């Protein structure tokens, strides 16, 4: 393409296609992600949003916050509907980007079959998963994306159980398993990385998947001002890894020099406040394993903060395993 590639914040076009006046909570991480993705994608696009916080805050009848065409049907069919919209554009001879923006419930659990279908067919759509790690819209129920130990209304904290007992589902691994054109994880606190990846996804054709971690103020029980700080800590502690998958290869785009202990990330969030130290150890071990699996093939590995001096981490030689 002849247009200049975007690399830093300053390159983002100064046009808002997701406008003010939406009803999201103050400090919402999802709207930061959506707003900037829409700025980069531009108005030659059609957006599909399934049931999620996003449709509730941005499309209250009879108004909408998107200045592009917006479509909404059911929860489970983001992959299928975006496929259909793209097919219609192809028939009409129009070249427009079709974006599906689904939450983690609409991607990890309910929308998985449609996503898998579209990814396998290699449809020319851009799929964005805005991941706030639970069903926040309906009042904080656990999803496949909720991390280990987190409190939700369906993984309560009491005498017998202390939050979610399962690890977070590895969505990127599932998507990459479909051999897609492009897949990347994004963080709203790593701005230039964010810009580059969204721009790259916009330029490619074929099935593209962007996975954004979007902190949720009421669901994570955090302070509204700390949304971006928490997103940054997620990366610095290894709870969230920034990498992209392109041409059959996964590549880390940002590696912290020294992994911070997960407690730095956990202590800012009320949903982890109850966590006993054994659980924190389990989570830390999972993070370290994930990190070694992910970056183990590269020469320099950041030291795993909490487990220095303990037996070496298991690494099975597969850089994509447990990403």
């Amino acid at each position: 393409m002849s247009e200049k590639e975007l690399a830093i914040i300053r390159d983002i076009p100064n046009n808002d296609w997701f406008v003010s006046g939406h009803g999201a909570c103050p400090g919402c991480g999802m709207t930061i992600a959506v707003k900037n993705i829409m700025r980069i994608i531009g108005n030659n696009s059609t957006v599909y949003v399934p049931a999620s916080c996003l449709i509730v805050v941005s499309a209250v009848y009879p108004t909408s916050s998107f200045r592009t065409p917006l479509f909404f049907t059911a929860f489970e069919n983001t992959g299928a509907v975006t496929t259909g919209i793209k097919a219609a554009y192809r028939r009409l001879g129009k070249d427009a980007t079709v974006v599906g923006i689904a939450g983690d419930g609409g991607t990890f659990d309910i929308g998985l079959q449609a996503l898998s279908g579209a990814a396998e067919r290699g449809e020319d759509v851009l799929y964005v998963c805005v991941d706030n790690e639970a069903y926040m819209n309906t009042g904080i129920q656990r999803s496949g994306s909720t991390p280990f130990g987190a409190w939700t209304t369906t993984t309560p904290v009491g005498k017998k159980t202390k939050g979610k007992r399962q690890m977070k589902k590895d969505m990127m691994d599932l998507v990459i398993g479909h051999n897609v054109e492009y897949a990347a994880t994004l963080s709203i606190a790593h701005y230039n990385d964010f810009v580059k990846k969204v721009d790259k996804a916009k330029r490619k054709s074929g099935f593209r998947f962007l996975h954004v971690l979007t902190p949720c103020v009421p669901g994570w029980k955090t302070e509204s001002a700390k949304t971006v700080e928490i997103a940054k800590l997620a990366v610095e502690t290894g709870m969230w890894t920034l990498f992209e998958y392109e041409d059959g290869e996964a590549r880390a785009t940002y590696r912290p020099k020294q992994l911070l202990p997960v407690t730095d990330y956990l202590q800012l969030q009320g949903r982890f406040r109850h966590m006993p130290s054994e659980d924190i150890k389990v989570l830390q071990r999972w993070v370290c394993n994930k990190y070694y699996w992910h970056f183990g093939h590269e020469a320099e590995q950041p030291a795993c903060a909490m487990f220095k001096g303990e037996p070496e981490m298991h690494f099975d030689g597969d850089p994509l395993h447990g990403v």
Partner: protein
Amino acid sequence: MFEVRFHGRGGQGAVMAAQTFAEAAVLEGHHAQAFPYFGAERRGAPVRAFARVDDKRITIKSQIYEPDMLVIMDESLLDIDPVADGLKPTGSVVMNTTKAPQDVDIGVAVRCATVDAIPIALETIKAPIVNTAILGAVAKICDLVTIESIKTSINDRFGEKLGEQAARMNSLAAEMAYARTVVGICKGERTIVRPKVWLPTWKELPQGTALGEDTLSGVTVGPGGSLGNYTGTWRTITPKYDQEKCVRCLRCWFCCPEGCIKRLEDDHVKWDYRYCKGCGICANICPADAIHMVKGAMEP
């Protein structure tokens, strides 16, 4: 039939207050129902909750448009929301304010009970959640419930959800508010302006949803799309910008969830305070310390 409408902000506990009030009425031998306004408004936004009390079974299920009593949990709502809309002239109002009843102006001159609930809430439950304190004031002005039934109901409802200690502190808040409540007559000078709501039928909607390209809001349905929804009324703290210190990194422009930070030609920024919800992210991430949050919803 006695109908009560609760006005609060998301997170203040208006829904819990309505439910606790209804439960107290049931304890007094009445029939009652309570339900929230079902909308998409989130934390900090003006919210409503409703309660109905009657001596026989209640079959009506609608929202309450002509209440007998209003409970206003945040004084600032009076300026942004037509709270007194439909209040009966024979009705009454309970309000969380530092003012005396005769200094309060809600737009209808009715019996008024005022209490400064925030210090009470801070003293007892250590958080500015005024729902239980305001119920103490409700018990003072409303004959249907007594302070005893309110306290029992708080113990039931909060004890089950939040534990015994929280229940005790919350019922103490109600008791303290009951003692401090002042009853009088409020002023009715304010004009109540009902917002014009544009709710077209499907036949009136623009076809497709596409308007012309030069239209301000592109294809946003309706006049102006969500730009007509001024979310700045949610704000309790306001960002203050110091252009001298600004290094034009544009991080605040990137990180504003509302998109209310506008980028100027020279990469300085400007706030559109009509939409700013006061989350404080911009002040938190600014590397040059050029943004500070100041208390209050005013524009600096």
